[in-house]
């Protein structure tokens, strides 16, 4: 055991002595969470639109000025003819063009019905459909205020937003970024640290030493486990203090779940390290194979429920999905560890499976 603690100490010193790498390892995750917490939004803000007002009457002008007064929309230009529309889109100048038909106000009063056309650049379908509803709401509000007959519908739906009253999108994206960063960086660090020993030929020396192979692996991974837990905690603090993401459950449970997820990521790194003898290959596999699935199939950017069935099935093998479910229920719903027992057992099961596979691979190599 003494031998092992000695080895462990060396591994820790190895990492913690290199100040530059340390800074990078601690700063990068926090910086990324900070940036993405502010940047990734699914609301519309400052969407550029142009208006083609063929009528130029009071009603169309009032609606136009309401549109430009909206915080979410910027009216960049008033067009004078249909022929200008195409250019606006081709040059990516606007996202939508609102067209008022001839005699807009007159039709509204005389025929009780007038037409507005919204042409949307649907090359980004998400923005297009959101923008459509934003503009529609503004127009409809105008009409009902202007022509209100003081008769509102006597039926109202009162939504109650559980767990996220202000409907902040940070509740989705900050934990998502956390999963992404912990997954990729942890797997990356562990796979590289082992492959590096192999590449430098020092792995053989370690294997000849009286240390047992599991001790070597444990010694290599332990410092990164500590490092990753520190990372997780600093990310949680950023979420708590800067993005006001509550931590309703217990800190202990939260850190425990993080620790389990990190162990899983480390074992994944271990498995990757058995595949190759070259650092850059290990790095590339860690990032390349993990990045997009973790981003897209964990519920980080797009909700899983709306995906086609085969993707939902596929998401069962994405560890970040379980992790996200578990930490959201602890942080946002204030649940104890028992509520997430399924997620936690899956993560532990995955860890065991990955370690088992690595040992098998490792043995084949030795024989």
């Amino acid at each position: 055991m003494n031998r092992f603690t000695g080895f462990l100490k060396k591994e820790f010193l190895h990492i913690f002595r290199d100040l530059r790498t340390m800074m990078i390892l601690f700063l990068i995750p926090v910086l990324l969470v900070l940036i993405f917490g502010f940047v990734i939004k699914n609301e519309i803000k400052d969407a550029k639109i142009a208006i083609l007002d063929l009528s130029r009457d009071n009603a169309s002008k009032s609606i136009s000025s309401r549109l430009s007064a909206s915080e979410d929309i910027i009216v960049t230009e008033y067009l004078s003819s249909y022929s200008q529309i195409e250019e606006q889109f081709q040059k990516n100048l606007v996202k939508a063009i609102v067209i008022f038909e001839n005699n807009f106000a007159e039709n509204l009063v005389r025929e009780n019905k007038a037409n507005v056309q919204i042409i949307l650049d649907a090359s980004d379908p998400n923005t297009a459909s959101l923008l459509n509803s934003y503009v529609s709401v503004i127009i409809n509000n105008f009409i009902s205020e202007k022509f209100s007959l003081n008769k509102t519908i006597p039926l109202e739906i009162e939504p109650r937003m559980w767990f996220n009253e202000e409907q902040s999108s940070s509740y989705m994206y900050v934990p998502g970024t956390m999963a992404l960063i912990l997954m990729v960086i942890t797997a990356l660090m562990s796979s590289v640290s082992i492959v590096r020993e192999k590449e430098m030929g020092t792995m053989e020396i370690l294997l000849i030493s009286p240390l047992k192979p599991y001790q070597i692996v444990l010694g290599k991974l332990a410092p990164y486990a500590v490092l990753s837990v520190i990372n997780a905690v600093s990310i949680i603090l950023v979420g708590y203090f800067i993005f006001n993401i509550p931590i309703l459950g217990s800190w202990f449970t939260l850190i425990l779940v993080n620790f389990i997820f990190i162990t899983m990521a480390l074992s994944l790194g271990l498995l990757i390290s058995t595949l190759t003898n070259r650092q850059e290959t290990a790095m590339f596999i860690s990032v390349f194979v993990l990045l997009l699935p973790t981003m897209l199939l964990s519920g980080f950017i797009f909700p899983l429920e709306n995906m086609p069935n085969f993707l939902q099935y596929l998401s069962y093998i994405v560890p970040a999905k379980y992790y996200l479910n578990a930490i959201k229920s602890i942080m946002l719903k204030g649940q104890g560890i028992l509520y997430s027992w399924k997620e936690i057992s899956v993560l532990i099961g995955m860890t065991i499976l990955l370690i088992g596979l690595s040992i098998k691979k490792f043995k084949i190599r030795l024989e």
Partner: protein
Amino acid sequence: MRILYRLILKEFKQIFRNKIMLPVIFIIPFIQTIILVYSATLELKNSDITIIDMDKSMISANLISKFQASPFFKVELMSYNEKEISDALLKDKTKAILIIPKDFEKNLRSGIPVKILLNLNAIDSQSSGLINIYVGQTVLGIFKDFKPFLSKIDLEQQMPKVDIRPSYWYNQNLNFKFFMLPGILTILVSMIGIFLTSFNIVREKEMGTIEQINVTPIEKWQFLTGKLLPFVLIGIFDLTIGLLFGIFMFDLPFEGSVYTMFIFTILFLIAGIGIGLLIADFSNTLQQSMFMLLFFFLIFILMGGTFTAVESMPDWAQAINVVNPMYYYMRVVRSILLKGSGVLDLIKDFWALLVYGITTVFVAVWAYRKTV
């Protein structure tokens, strides 16, 4: 030219000999693209909703059947129980719980305002917002069916109506695959280019082979061009194959011209790989280069508008995007594919990428030191 040819030949030999990297470069990107392209959709479908009917009237039954018939919802019924409501939301058994109150029908008929409570799990604020809208539309549907009964309400009264007709240009059916495919493909292809170029050079540093090269009379630009070109070529190849998959499997439109696409792709790859070269200049170990690459790359893809709209980002983020090659390229690719934009339409992006590419490569060559 002879020297460049030798350099490139050597790189290709080394790439094609790495049995693990070959599939990573030439197969995995396509598999990932084809699978992950399905991951984005705005449509709500089969969303779990639980309805508590405390009225048990004809109208409430009609309302429930409306939800059951809707493709957006998967309905489950429950009886009122305070604890079970919060339990269902806590345990993610359902996304939304709609409570139809007692005397719902009676009050409606007599014109007394009615409130329907909708409990939503709002952690994913976008989904819950959508559910809220769809529930609203479904509920209003009852007024059409029960017009005779609810005559006192009469929604169709004299209020003028604006008929708002959206027309979705360039992607009429709001097909998300047209949006996702170029995004995913670009991420994968540029990652291959930027990461591998950088690793390649840093590896030569770690292995010491770079010394042997540095004692030769080879010019710095020759050496770096020899590193850049193979990965630009691989990038173009991967992107072409990926787009062909898109066109034949997913009916991805290709409205623009092939040559516009190539011009921008080459410019983008040079700009991106130029950054890879720069990072390699400043790294001595693969680990250092890895972390710098990862940092910049994540920022590039998540801020560049690959999945979320750039316009919604705060101003400082948009300012940062000036130095984000992905920001230009994502917009350009989608414009070329879906709108058929030409170089002249995208002239600003053209200059931006050109200047960007020249600058990064130039600085990378300048910062590369044959002698320390």
